[in-house]
């Protein structure tokens, strides 16, 4: 690996998180010597919301986007350093602090660079132009006589003025100008380079402060005690049952919210395990074995028609060959390796919350609502935690900590236990999809009709567990994520209808997990596309190409065929023997408007056991302008490995009362001996917009595997996960 080493002043020791919590005041004092943080604007149209430059020329970037372990902190610094023409080491990043960072939206949907980075870039371009005009005035020359390098303007006669001298410690007082000219990408020195991530030296030496390591002085430790049934009512609590635990401070109960607070973490853990409480019986969940019947029978509140071309019904009637199929995708958990953690302190009517929330600005609103406090009295600060692949439980841990801190009158740290995380994090919802397709006599697709059975709602705030249990104000609408995305398809067929039936309910509290909806929908779409290709007797990659009217999509698939050494032929391969090998292709244009990605999976299927081994995955991605190529590759590798895990192994189990897959034994994930090799080709387009890279490649993995299995053994897997028993059953019925 050829990496450009960065030597950042504070991040060298990996203390990025500490900067947020402890040394913010000096940074603000430096940037705003006039004082109060209230003077720091946060509006999205102000340059000062995003940037501050001190007398020495050090640049502070304020961003509402946060680094969830993806490396965006480094990438955002690259964007700012490039556009301002300052050395990378002069950039400091302050992220997710509701007092001083602009609300750039939650860190989700692969939008940190695409939206957040672009906003920062435009603010930096506005600032650079303003500084250049000031420099020209100061030095008595025209702007065309100025050369900018390393944060200093120089004239041809050798006169010089620095950013620090021009603006140091002062506000820009400028609106972000959307027309401010951006640097020519041909001149980039920092963007497009594989800069080494700032946080890694600290993370590999134990010097980094994760949320789980974060402490405030005098804090107590809390743990929540959840009901044995999701909707069970708390009838009585036996506080004597934990009296013998030294260090126990308090048992807290508020309606159905129950928790303990103790002087030490171990005392809190013991008390939570030992506390006796009586709960009512609750059996409101459907039987897991009848989950799909339950989903199909759930009331439909509305239909979202996501595409409608021609007349599908008529085309189906006239088709020479008709196909129909039903696909389903199991409920998944986030499965963060570090259970969620937060610290809350309520002092003099003001609440401080430190959490690893992907949406600190929204969490502030939720906590204020839950506790009936004015938003201005709630401060929500980001401290990086264990990986977060969507809306997991960080916000819920924060709500637990808030209720316990309010009851205890002191700061409380809550870290969920493993069973809390597996049992109570919001889940990726079950997805059921029906297809009908038609081919004409020549094997051309004439009709595509899909129906998605998915809960209603979008990517709003997800209700806080503690608020609901305690009977405090909370959201009532579901927030499964924008899961209708990629229900429509990137292919030009004459008759297409794609409809999402939005369900009134779903069994477990839903939220978004990496590529929400896009993954499930693309799984079904790309596998059914493969069914049509097989029915037409066509090579599945050529078949796709013949329906793509998009040069970037076409180039991508052609490059993928080369990278994967694609063997052009129809599927299945009719391999014989106990171990059958096959390859499958999948393609998506993410949300039909951005990142293009395609994958070829190579698998081996054991016909006797039903075991699937994903041996190799080739990925080609075009996400426009690339900020940090190694960062993008790291994300793609993660998408592939994590999704192979989800597709081969993962399924949340539950009884009528609660989730029963409460640890890594009952919810196994992929282990080292099972990982595939991954080969990646990036199509860099420096003059195009930068698009998301964190999740699009995850969307194509399930179907690439399913199609490869079909190629190997001629059997369609239409139900995720592809566990050996399901594979064997599918072989028997095929």
């Amino acid at each position, binding site marked *: 690996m050829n990496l450009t080493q960065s030597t950042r002043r504070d991040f060298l020791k990996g203390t990025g998180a500490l900067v947020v919590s402890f040394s913010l005041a000096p940074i603000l004092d430096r940037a705003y010597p006039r004082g109060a943080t209230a003077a720091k604007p946060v509006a999205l149209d102000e340059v000062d919301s995003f940037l501050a430059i001190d007398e020495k020329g050090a640049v502070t970037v304020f961003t509402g986007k946060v680094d969830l372990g993806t490396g965006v902190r480094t990438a955002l610094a690259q964007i700012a350093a490039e556009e301002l023409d300052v050395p990378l080491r002069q950039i400091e990043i302050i992220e997710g602090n509701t007092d001083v960072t602009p609300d750039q939206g939650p860190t989700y949907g692969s939008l940190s660079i695409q939206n957040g980075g672009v906003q920062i870039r435009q603010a930096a371009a506005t600032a650079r132009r303003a500084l250049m005009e000031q420099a020209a005035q100061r030095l008595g020359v025209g702007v065309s006589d100025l050369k900018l390098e390393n944060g200093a303007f120089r004239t041809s006669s050798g006169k010089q003025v620095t950013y620090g001298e021009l603006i140091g410690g002062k506000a820009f007082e400028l609106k972000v100008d959307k027309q401010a000219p951006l640097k020519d990408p041909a001149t980039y020195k920092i963007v497009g380079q594989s800069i080494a991530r700032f946080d*890694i030296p600290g993370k*590999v030496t134990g010097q980094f402060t994760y949320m*789980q390591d974060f402490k405030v002085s005098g804090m107590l430790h809390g743990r929540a005690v959840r009901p044995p049934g999701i909707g069970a009512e708390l009838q009585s609590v036996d506080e004597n049952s934990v009296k013998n635990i*030294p260090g126990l401070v308090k048992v807290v109960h508020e309606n159905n919210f129950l928790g303990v607070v103790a002087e030490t973490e171990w005392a809190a853990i013991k008390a939570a395990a030992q506390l006796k409480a009586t709960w009512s019986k609750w059996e409101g969940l459907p039987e897991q074995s009848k989950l799909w019947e339950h989903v199909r029978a759930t009331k439909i509140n509305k239909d979202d028609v996501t595409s409608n071309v021609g007349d599908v019904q008529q085309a189906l009637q006239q088709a020479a060959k008709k196909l129909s199929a039903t696909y389903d995708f199991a409920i998944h958990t986030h499965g963060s*390796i570090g*259970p969620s953690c937060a610290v809350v302190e309520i002092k003099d009517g003001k609440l401080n919350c430190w959490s690893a929330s992907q949406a600190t600005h929204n969490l502030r609103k939720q906590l204020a609502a839950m506790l009936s406090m004015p938003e201005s009295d709630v401060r929500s600060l980001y401290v990086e935690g264990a*990986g977060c*692949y969507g809306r997991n439980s960080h916000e819920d841990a924060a709500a637990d900590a808030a209720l316990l801190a309010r009851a205890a009158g002191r700061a409380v740290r809550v870290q969920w236990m493993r069973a809390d995380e597996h049992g109570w994090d919001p889940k990726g919802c079950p997805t059921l999809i029906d297809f009908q397709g038609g081919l004409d006599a020549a094997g051309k697709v004439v009709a595509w009709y899909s129906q998605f059975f998915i809960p209603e709602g979008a990517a709003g705030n997800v209700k806080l567990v503690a608020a609901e249990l305690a009977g405090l104000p909370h959201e009532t609408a579901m927030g499964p994520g924008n899961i209708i995305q990629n229900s429509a398809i990137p292919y030009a067929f004459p008759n297409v209808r794609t409809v999402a039936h939005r369900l009134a309910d779903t069994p477990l509290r839903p939220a978004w997990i990496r590529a929400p909806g896009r993954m499930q929908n693309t799984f079904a779409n790309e596998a059914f596309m493969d069914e049509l290709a097989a029915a037409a007797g066509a090579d599945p990659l050529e078949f796709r190409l013949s329906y793509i009217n998009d040069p970037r999509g076409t180039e991508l698939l052609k490059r993928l065929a080369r990278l994967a050494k694609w063997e052009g032929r129809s599927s299945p391969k009719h391999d014989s023997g106990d171990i059958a090998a096959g390859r499958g292709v999948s393609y998506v244009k993410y949300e039909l408007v951005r990142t293009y990605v395609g994958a070829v999976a190579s698998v081996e299927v054991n016909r006797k056991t039903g075991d699937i081994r994903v041996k190799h995955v080739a990925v080609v991605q075009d996400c426009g302008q690339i900020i940090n190529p190694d960062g993008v590759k790291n994300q793609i590798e*993660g998408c592939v490995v994590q999704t192979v895990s989800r597709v081969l192994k993962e399924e949340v189990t539950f009884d009528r009362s609660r989730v029963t897959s409460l640890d890594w034994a009952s919810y196994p994930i992929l282990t080292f001996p099972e990982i595939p090799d*991954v080969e990646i080709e990036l199509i860099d387009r420096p003059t195009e917009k930068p698009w998301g890279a964190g999740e699009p490649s995850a969307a194509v993995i399930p179907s690439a595997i399913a199609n490869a299995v079909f190629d190997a053994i001629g059997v369609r897997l239409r139900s995720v996960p592809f566990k050996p028993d399901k594979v064997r059953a599918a072989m028997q019925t095929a």
Partner: protein
Amino acid sequence: MAMATTVSLHVNGKTQKVTVEDPDMPLLYALRDNLGLHGPRFGCGMDQCGACTVHIDGKAVRSCITPLSAVGKGKITTLEGLGTPEKPHPLQKAFIEEQAVQCGYCINGMIMQAAAFLARTKKPSEAEIKKALAGNLCRCGTHLRIVRAVKRAAASI
């Protein structure tokens, strides 16, 4: 009610005293909460993920299920004791060079497990590395880089 007890621990070359109410408290909490170390981390509390891994007398153990009372005179090494950003252990250096981190929460376990493994296995094959790390879970999907980093470190030790 139990009386607080004081236990001597040999951590990263130093003897340190910790006072606890429960001598059966897992070592993990003594290292993190009493001694303020950040390397070993809580992941599952059940010996299923490896995030809490430390060395005791050179052997990789799961501190989340190791009672304090069982440590005795064992010499404990944590990620902090292996090396620093200024003087990293060959594995830490290799993890930086391979950028073998996403969130990094599991990385403590990966490095500690691999360090104990490399200490007794010279020039391991890729399959041997994967087998050695089979009990360590990563959710970000950093596995490929972790294997590359361990291979790189193995070549330099």
